[in-house]
């Protein structure tokens, strides 16, 4: 919750020459590293814990003693698509920023719009994925793999959603012509947050989906 409407109140140069808000978002990102590290540790500790019930497995099909058939949970093509979307959105937002800094409103709107689109689709992908998993029998409650999977990816998804909302307000601002180059910092800060959410996914993707 950075005070993002807030610039240098005092009309003074800062001691480091760096903008307060940009430093704040980096600080926040640093702090978030520990947040996701804890969630990832939790996932790694629990990923092989299947005690409380026959359930589906991430990578293998399985037939329970009672004859129930479970499909493997994870669908690599789907998440690969999501991953690609996030990666591209990172590229798009950096291009949007470059356009903002150059004062090219059209370019800004285009690239930021594409970023948003990617964000939307990523969130959509995750909603689809979650509901699909639930159909296959994996829920928050079914076992600790499910619990820690949903917690980790769910909190990441929440971050993406917040990022989408943030970028959307910026897109509207830009549309109304309120992001001249002098204010491109507003976008830069949101973009930093967005990239961070992306790098977290860069870790989650192999750790959660690819490594068995």
């Amino acid at each position, binding site marked *: 919750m950075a005070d993002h409407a807030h610039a240098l109140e005092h009309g003074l140069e800062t001691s480091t020459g760096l903008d307060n808000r940009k430093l704040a978002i980096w600080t926040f990102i640093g702090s978030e590293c520990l947040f996701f590290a804890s969630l990832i540790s939790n996932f790694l500790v629990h990923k092989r814990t299947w005690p409380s019930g026959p359930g589906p497995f991430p990578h293998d099909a399985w037939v329970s003693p009672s004859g129930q058939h479970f499909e493997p949970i994870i669908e690599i093509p789907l998440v690969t698509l999501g991953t690609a979307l996030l990666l591209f959105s990172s590229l798009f937002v*950096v291009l949007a920023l470059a356009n903002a800094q150059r004062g090219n409103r059209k370019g800004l709107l285009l690239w930021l719009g594409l970023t948003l689109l990617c964000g939307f689709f990523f969130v959509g992908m995750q909603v689809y994925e979650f509901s699909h998993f639930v159909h296959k029998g994996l829920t928050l409650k079914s076992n600790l793999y499910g619990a820690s999977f949903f917690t980790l990816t769910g909190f990441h998804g929440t971050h993406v959603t917040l990022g989408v909302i943030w970028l959307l307000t910026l897109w509207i601002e830009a549309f109304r012509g309120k992001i001249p180059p002098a204010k*491109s910092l*507003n976008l830069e800060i949101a973009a930093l947050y967005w990239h961070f959410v992306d790098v977290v996914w860069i870790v989650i993707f192999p750790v959660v989906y690819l490594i068995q």
Partner: protein
Amino acid sequence: MDAHAPPTAAAAHDADHPSSGVYVKIGVVLFVLTALEVGLYEFTYGGHAGPAGQTLQPFFIPVLLLLSAAKFALVAMYYMHLKQDHRLFSGVFVFPLVIATVVIVSLIVLQAYHFAFARSG
């Protein structure tokens, strides 16, 4: 978002920001690395895993971690501008990152000890 950010912060740095071309190139590299990750998965574990793939399984995790670290570094250095931005930003990011990694690793090690030796039975 009507704060009066000083024009200096954005404009001054504009000059040394890499051009859009660089961003796109990085984007391509990121995409290729991701494809590599998935390809590696398919080759060693996935539906297309043959005997050759299976012999590679021991290398799968380290290679995968390396690839993702590379992607991580590319995004942080170029898209997040750490490479040419003030070093303080790198510090504010990297220090927590190191602590975070140490925390993950040590938690895994400590828990693994328990699973290995202290299980009741």
